[in-house]
């Protein structure tokens, strides 16, 4: 390799290391972010305009800042952030993969973003066509029959999926109580099951990191509403026995729920619908270049097989026989799961990403994501061996147990030291079934030069573990904020508002 990797995002921020005060600490009573001209309109007491019973009895303690101070605050903070636009981000699609800039151009199009969601269908046929087209393409990609675009993000999609599962069983007069989840599952899965009113039964993984088929079969029964699975799973491995799993669950009348968090790995290669899944949620940010739910807004469409179509949330954009588009509510709809039509601008970005790549381009996305993860797994095998030593999918779960046993250096220390090296940390301590887990997901966008630079950084950290382990316990030192005491922060929680009052 002769070319250099993209510049590293290491070292100090633009403007020093000084602690940025919180907005509460900067607040000055009576300060405004606006100044209006004299209007000659007489002031009226609020109570004369709004009946007292509708007014809050207490003043709300809000921050009072000028626009100038506020813009300065956020600009300074933004210059101290590590972002996917700034440098290598091995959290990958787990958080948010790189968003190509053409998606921003689509979202900025006033033809799309100046349409009020309450506009009658006759006046926004283009928007409805966009939504119907996206639904159709997501169904082709996942092998499903129909989809809702309403859910606001992945976890909202999970809950929607469980409500659909419940609606399906209840419509058949079949009251079931349990949902199965593997012990490697995302934490949102058991939370969604509980919110959906079901009990969780955990299925152990076998020694290959996959669902243990015998334990699964032993846990099945007529009270099982379904199973939630991620495939590839959170260890980055493909559930090879998925066909057997699907037929065993279907045999007892249960449904299969596909957690689409890892869909980026299988685009164009295999479809959840063909594996036997009945309900599929997609985190558009993980696969189709949209913002993340937490930083949002997000979008978590849910696609279903034919037998669940009538229960989908509504109203849904639909193509009528005339060719015109209209809003229609599925016959036994579970109702709305979002105001208006979901986070529509995010949906427009996803359609743009799908259309620009095309079927062959999306397949290459998955191929390169898997290739990058395997290259990195192999490259790092002497320093951070893989938890399950074989071909992985889009992410590789490595373990720092060797460094821990030899030098007392934990996964967390490696992750923190990577920040000093100019790379974002990977996911640590997940999945829970892997000791000292470090989950690297480079995604398809990183070049071989960048992956090599990351591997060299990990090797430098391993050398430091040997020569100066103490420095790793203190890392990072070159970042705007150095090592924080996470345990103390969680044990003695002080809200920033309280902190300001104390100051």
């Amino acid at each position: 390799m002769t070319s250099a990797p993209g510049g590293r995002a290491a070292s100090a921020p633009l403007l020093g290391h000084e602690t940025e005060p919180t907005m509460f600490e900067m607040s000055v009573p009576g300060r405004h972010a606006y100044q209006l001209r004299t209007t000659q309109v007489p002031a009226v007491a609020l109570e004369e305009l709004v009946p007292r019973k509708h007014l809050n009895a207490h003043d709300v303690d809000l921050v009072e800042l000028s626009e100038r101070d506020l813009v300065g605050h956020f600009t300074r903070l933004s210059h101290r952030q590590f972002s996917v636009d700034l440098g290598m981000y091995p959290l990958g699609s787990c958080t948010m993969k790189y968003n190509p800039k053409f998606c921003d151009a689509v979202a900025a199009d006033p033809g799309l973003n100046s349409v009020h969601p309450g506009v009658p269908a006759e006046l926004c046929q283009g928007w409805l066509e966009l939504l119907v087209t996206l639904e159709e393409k997501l169904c082709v990609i996942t092998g499903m029959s129909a989809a809702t675009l309403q859910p606001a993000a992945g976890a909202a999609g999970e809950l929607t999926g469980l409500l659909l599962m419940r609606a399906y069983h209840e419509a058949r007069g079949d009251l079931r109580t349990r949902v199965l989840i593997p012990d490697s599952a995302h934490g949102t899965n058991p939370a969604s099951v509980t919110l959906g009113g079901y009990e969780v039964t955990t299925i152990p993984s076998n020694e290959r990191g996959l669902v243990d088929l015998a334990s699964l079969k032993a846990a099945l029964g007529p009270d099982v509403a379904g199973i939630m699975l991620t495939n590839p799973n959170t260890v980055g491995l493909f559930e090879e026995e998925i066909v057997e799993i699907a037929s065993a669950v279907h045999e007892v009348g249960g449904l299969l729920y596909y957690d689409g968090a890892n869909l980026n790995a299988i685009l164009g290669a295999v479809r959840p619908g063909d594996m036997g899944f009945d309900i599929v949620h997609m985190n558009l940010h993980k696969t189709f270049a949209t913002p993340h739910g937490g930083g949002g807004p997000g979008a978590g469409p849910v696609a279903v097989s034919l037998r669940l179509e009538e229960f989908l949330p509504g109203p849904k954009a639909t193509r009528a026989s005339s060719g015109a588009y209209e809003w229609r509510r599925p016959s036994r709809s579970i109702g709305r799961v979002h105001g208006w039509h979901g986070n529509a601008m995010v949906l427009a970005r996803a359609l743009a990403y799908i259309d620009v790549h095309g079927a062959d381009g999306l397949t290459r996305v998955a191929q390169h994501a898997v290739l990058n993860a395997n290259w990195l797994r192999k490259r790092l095998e002497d320093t951070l061996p893989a938890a399950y030593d074989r071909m992985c999918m889009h992410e590789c779960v490595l373990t720092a147990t060797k460094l821990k046993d030899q030098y007392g250096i934990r996964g967390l220390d490696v992750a923190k030291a990577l920040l000093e090296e100019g790379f974002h940390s990977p996911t640590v301590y997940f999945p829970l079934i892997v000791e000292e887990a470090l989950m690297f997901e480079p995604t398809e966008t990183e070049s071989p030069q960048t992956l090599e630079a990351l591997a060299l950084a990990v090797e430098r950290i391993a050398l430091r573990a040997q020569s100066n382990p103490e420095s790793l316990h203190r890392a990072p030192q070159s970042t705007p904020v150095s090592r924080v005491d996470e345990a103390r922060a969680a044990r003695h929680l002080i809200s920033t508002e309280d902190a300001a009052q104390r100051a």
Partner: protein
Amino acid sequence: MQIPSELRYSKDHEWAKADGAVVRIGITDYAQDALGDVVFVDVPKIGAQVSAGGVLGEVESTKSVSEIYAPVSGTVSAVNDTLKNAPESVNADPYGAGWICEITTTSLDDFNSLLDAQGYQALTNN
């Protein structure tokens, strides 16, 4: 790693100590080390009925939230309230100040089927 010989152990890494029909419960040294810094312990309510293998509470660390399983069936008769303000006792003294609750049982069958120190040592070696 400490595995006191006078205690009994579950496969889910809880320890148990019987005093007549009252069984005191906590998580093992191995468990606290794997969890990392404990920041919150959700203890059960006094009077709650629990069955062996059922969920007793939760331990939250900076890494994860893990369930605590009841090693024996019975009624929760005491809980360690000091964990509310000092969850770090679970890390510092898992077999002492970091105890979680006491369960009054009607039968010691569950207790007697738990692992002894030697059995638990073998489990953690795997």
